[in-house]
């Protein structure tokens, strides 16, 4: 029965997809660029034709020029590296702590009842509320910034890992029992692969929050970093510099997220959803 229903549908979608495969591979991301590019060109034109002086909202060419200037003077790489380092360190710490705590709470019911209420209570605190305390405890330099980012990353990872372990299909675990897997083998051969898709989602959410918190951290008081560029631009009235920093944030955020996606794609090829998106 299912075959007769599936076949015509398959033929319909397969035919147009096969022929212009190259076109669609290029066109799909291009389609996403259409709206921002049109907006940017439009604004460029508006300023060029003199309808706006573009002082508060500088045209794209000005923003681009600022980026080039920053790059040429070596400022850009200094700020980008400072920010990347903070996000990287905070993200790593948050992921390690979140994974360990989430795994313990998910795997061991007693630990969940012991720890989870406290973690959930801490989660309810807006993370930025920690800033004064972290500054008092850890100083205004790197440590407090990394700690703040790590706190932001920790919660989605913790929740993701715990939730993923708790929702592993009991029937699949039973297959492991039938084949008499030991505890470590059960974790390695059943739980880890079962948890991986949700873990990847948690990592990506965590990374997004990492980028969010680095801005907050760098606004606290930094002498370098993209957040510093933002603040500096505001205080010295340089909107082009603010926009340049925002654009670089967007590029870096997207790039690092894509890196995670690409890195785990081979491990998730088995997923139904992945195949359906036509990745490989």
């Amino acid at each position, binding site marked *: 029965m*299912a075959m007769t229903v599936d076949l015509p549908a398959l033929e319909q979608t397969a035919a147009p997809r096969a022929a212009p495969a190259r076109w669609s591979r290029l066109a799909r991301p291009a389609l996403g660029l259409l709206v921002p590019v049109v907006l940017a060109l439009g604004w460029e034109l508006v300023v060029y034709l003199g309808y706006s002086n573009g002082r508060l909202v500088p045209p794209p060419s000005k923003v681009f020029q600022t980026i080039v200037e920053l790059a040429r003077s070596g400022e850009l790489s200094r700020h980008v590296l400072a920010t990347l380092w903070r996000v990287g360190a905070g993200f790593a710490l948050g992921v390690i702590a979140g994974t360990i705590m989430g795994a313990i709470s998910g795997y061991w019911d007693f630990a969940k009842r012991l720890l989870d209420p406290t973690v959930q209570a801490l989660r309810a605190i807006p993370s930025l509320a920690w800033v004064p305390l972290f500054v008092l405890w850890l100083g205004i330099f790197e440590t407090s910034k990394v700690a703040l980012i790590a706190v932001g990353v920790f919660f989605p990872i913790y929740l993701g890992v715990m939730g993923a372990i708790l929702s592993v299909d009991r029937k699949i675990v039973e297959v492991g029992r*039938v*084949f*008499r897997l030991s505890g470590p083998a059960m974790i390695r*051969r*059943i739980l880890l692969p079962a948890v991986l898709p949700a873990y990847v989602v948690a990592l990506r959410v965590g990374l997004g929050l990492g980028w969010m918190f680095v801005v907050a951290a760098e606004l606290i008081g930094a002498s370098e970093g993209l957040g510093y560029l933002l603040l500096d631009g505001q205080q010295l009235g340089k909107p082009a510099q603010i926009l340049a920093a925002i654009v670089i944030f967007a590029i870096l955020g997207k790039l690092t997220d894509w890196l995670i996606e690409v890195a785990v794609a081979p491990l998730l*090829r*088995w997923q139904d959803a992945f*195949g359906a998106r036509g990745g490989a």
Partner: protein
Amino acid sequence: MLALKDVGKTYPNGVHALERFSAEISPGEIIAIIGGSGCGKSTLLRAIAGLDRASTGSVSLDNAVITSPHAKIGIIFQEPRLLPWLSVADNIGFGLADLSAEVRRERVASALARVGLTDKAAAWPRELSGGQAQRVAIARALVPQPEVLLLDEPFSALDAFTRRDLQDHLLDLWADTRPTLILVTHDVDEAVVLADRVLVMRPRPGRLFEEITINLARPRDRKSELFDTFKRRVLTALDRSLDRSVRDVTDKSSAGEAMWW
């Protein structure tokens, strides 16, 4: 010899699922357990598999009491339960982790050929049809060469055509090493096609009601008159098992049973 002695199961929530079930099953025998819903068929099978412990009585294989999953006992569930992150070949070899890679590859290859899925070796489980997935599950359970293979309504989710195909295929595979097969089913046709003995159970609490020996030569002709006669006998026993006015055919007490109706 698989011996079930007064096996009973009461779940922690108080449900009395199975009461004093006894049977002796010889090596290579094919047993079908049939009965209405809630008659403890699956409970019994899980106790034999060692997945759940019986509350009373014991299950023993060659005098070894079964309390947890056992190397010589395999099970096939109603759904294939393939691991979605492993290829078909790796799913089949899942229970062979202790063997060397080379032996494992050989065994998996011959099992794949045996179930006719050699061309699907590298496929993901999601790419299989229901019947193919269940064949992989059968291969996975048979590859470690169990002495007892338990089947919990293994074909109930498949269409009639595929089901018949797989029943014949199962007998074919069974003939290779002749393990004991214990099949839980609610399909009378399936029970009569496959089994040497059909155990009819009755519900609340689940217990053995009647035992019917199917002494028909294999391969069995589903359209023969004798086949129909056996089917009728099983059907009659099933009807009677659900009729509370009929006392248990086995020697168990049915006092107070009428209170259920």
